[in-house]
């Protein structure tokens, strides 16, 4: 068992866990992920390693409650434990020293995985500009943590409830207009956001890395569920990624593949809600 040593509620649907997982904490690097399973009947859920503490042997996970699996996970409290944690998985981010500014973009829960990348880039001596965004103020988190590892932090909300009003792509465009020596962009967030960022940087000719989050099961290359078409070649996000060249990823296909189990996810949520109503229908 892997204890939850700390839980933080970042917004109504976004939760943070510090998990005791010494083996993962010992080797974790920016850009990697892990897989957890909350209980015997649970799915294997891939989550990015948002932070790690090698001495305490803990890793930090941030997740949004979307399907039944993450909803159940979100109900666990500090002191509870999850059944399985395996990792670190995936290829770490390639961190190097660049001769100009680098921009990291985190959208929504994508702020969590972009944090260790920003920190690693900063530690490598880069000028790091971070752009974080969410639909509204409520969904933003880790502003201070991001500020601490960035030379400049730009915060956006779609509805203007906090920071700059507008999309992260607009903020990126503006930054590029003033800084044509932009060296590299990392973008993590919902797939439509990553696609929008890639489309923004393509005409700039700035190498852009995105972190794909397709359907996944074992995370070791065995199931092939996480297939992503990159530059016309089939790649497995779990062992070849999760980071890929955003200009080469076939996002249309990737977005379609995310819908494979949409009906089943609805069924699972309905079953969960039904269960939580305490069986008032009398079928229990």
């Amino acid at each position, binding site marked *: 068992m892997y204890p939850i040593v700390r839980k933080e509620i970042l917004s109504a649907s976004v939760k943070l866990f510090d998990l005791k997982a010494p*083996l*993962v904490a010992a*080797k974790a690097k920016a850009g*990697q992920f892990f897989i957890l*399973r909350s209980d015997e*009947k*649970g*799915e*294997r859920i891939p989550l990015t390693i948002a932070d790690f503490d090698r001495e305490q042997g803990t890793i930090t996970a941030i997740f949004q409650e979307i399907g*039944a*699996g993450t909803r*159940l996970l979100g109900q666990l409290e500090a002191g509870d434990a999850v*059944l*399985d*944690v*395996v*990792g*670190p*998985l995936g290829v770490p981010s390639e961190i190097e020293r660049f001769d100009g500014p680098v921009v990291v973009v985190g959208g929504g829960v994508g702020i969590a995985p972009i944090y260790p990348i920003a920190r690693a880039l900063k530690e490598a001596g880069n000028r790091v500009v971070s752009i974080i965004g969410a639909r509204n103020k409520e969904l933003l988190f880790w502003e201070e943590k991001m500020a601490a590892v960035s030379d400049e932090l730009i915060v956006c909300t779609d509805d203007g409830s906090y920071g700059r009003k507008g999309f992260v792509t607009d903020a990126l465009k503006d930054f590029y207009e003033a800084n044509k020596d932009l060296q590299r962009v990392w973008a993590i967030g919902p797939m439509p956001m990553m696609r929008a960022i890639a489309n923004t940087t393509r005409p700039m000719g700035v190498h852009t890395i995105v972190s794909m989050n397709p359907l996944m*099961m*074992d995370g*070791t*290359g*065995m*199931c*092939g*569920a996480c*297939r992503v*078409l990159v530059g016309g070649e*089939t790649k497995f996000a779990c*062992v070849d990624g999760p980071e890929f060249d955003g200009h080469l990823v076939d996002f*249309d*296909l990737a977005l*379609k*593949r995310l*819908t*494979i*189990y949409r009906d*089943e*996810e609805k*069924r*699972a949520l309905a*079953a*969960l809600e039904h269960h939580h109503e305490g069986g008032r229908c009398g079928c229990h």
Partner: protein
Amino acid sequence: MPCQDPQVRRANFDEVALGYTEEQAVKEAARCIQCKKPKCREGCPVEVLIPDFIKAVAERDFAGAAVKLKEKNALPAICGRVCPQESQCEEKCILGIKSEPVAIGRLERFVADWEMAQGASATEAAPAKGAKVAVIGAGPAGLTCAAELAKLGYAVTVFEALHTAGGVLMYGIPEFRLPKAIVDKEIANLRQLGVELQFNVVIGPSMTVEELMNEQGYAAVFLGTGAGLPNFMGIPGENLCGVFSANEFLTRTNLMKGFRFPEYGTPVKLGRKVAVLGAGNVAMDAARTAVRLGAEEVTIVYRRSDKEMPARAEEIEHAREEGVQFKLLTNPVEIIGDENGWVKAMKCLRYELGEPDASGRRKPVAIPGSEFVMDMDTVIVAIGTGPNPLATKSTAGLELNRRGNIVADEEGRTSIPGVFAGGDIVTGAATVILAMGAGKKAAQAIDAYITAKAAEAAN
């Protein structure tokens, strides 16, 4: 052997073959003529004492039969179910020349099940040797290697990437062919022998072979990481929604119990018309699983003829009985999707058989202009698997061949002293029993290696 009626079993995941009764087993065992030089043993990769255990069955000494059986085979209830006996022990049986060979596999299963029903007695391990060995991968090769080493008195730790032991026995082979409760019992026996199992450890990213040997004090390491990476055809449309590798489809169903969704959290998706590409045992397993999950039409699509199908005859027969159709001498060239990215059809070519190729089988040749379209909403790709590179690429100095398999000798020795390997990671995808045979041989070589090293150190 009695089986569940095909019409009934199409709708359940219970075991298909029901096993012998005591009377049936004794009667079958009595057919064995107890050859002086038993050919059957030569056909068995782990050299099970076949005539001895069959003799005990004929004498109704089932406990004695179990002792003889387990002397050479750590996982008899599994082998009795999934070994290709017809091309191994039973193929060599003298009785088979004139009539039916002795049903060795069914007798093996009978004895193992009988013993399990009695509550199996623990196998004795030798006194502790004071050396530890790490086994990577809890599949058939790793588990057998671990069992042998534990019996020899080594402290064995098995490291497994998944959350449970068994490897392909758990994620690949369906419940109706190998009940998971049987695998669990065999693993419980291993624990009784003192083998420690550590789950959720991926050798490579979580821990390296070097660390195991240099920092954690393991005297030797056995790599049994298997052939787990699914192959795809490389044709247009194979990443469409509704195209699955057999590994994904079977893992969702077997390991994650997708057939009990949403009680279990992992769904498994299937349309009405399912094509399974390939004709090996995995393809049969996938097709028969699709039938049980309620698909209306399940078709095996294979580019050679029925004579070349690599699956066991029994599995093909069971699949046919359950309504699986066979589209032979046919191969897809493109998978066609609808506007939502879902599979809707498959473009195929018809084939004929030409001259024999390197494998000795007649080579399938496409017939020009034979293109046709099959309506389809699910495609399951079961055309083999490659070696998993996570452990091998993180181990400096480990010699690999062109395909990425570990180069190892007959005894499992690799290019690194103290590092041994066996099973599918060495041979490429093969059978459970071959992997077990390799695990067993490697255990003996590991014992010899550690013993020699200790003797060297003492001098």
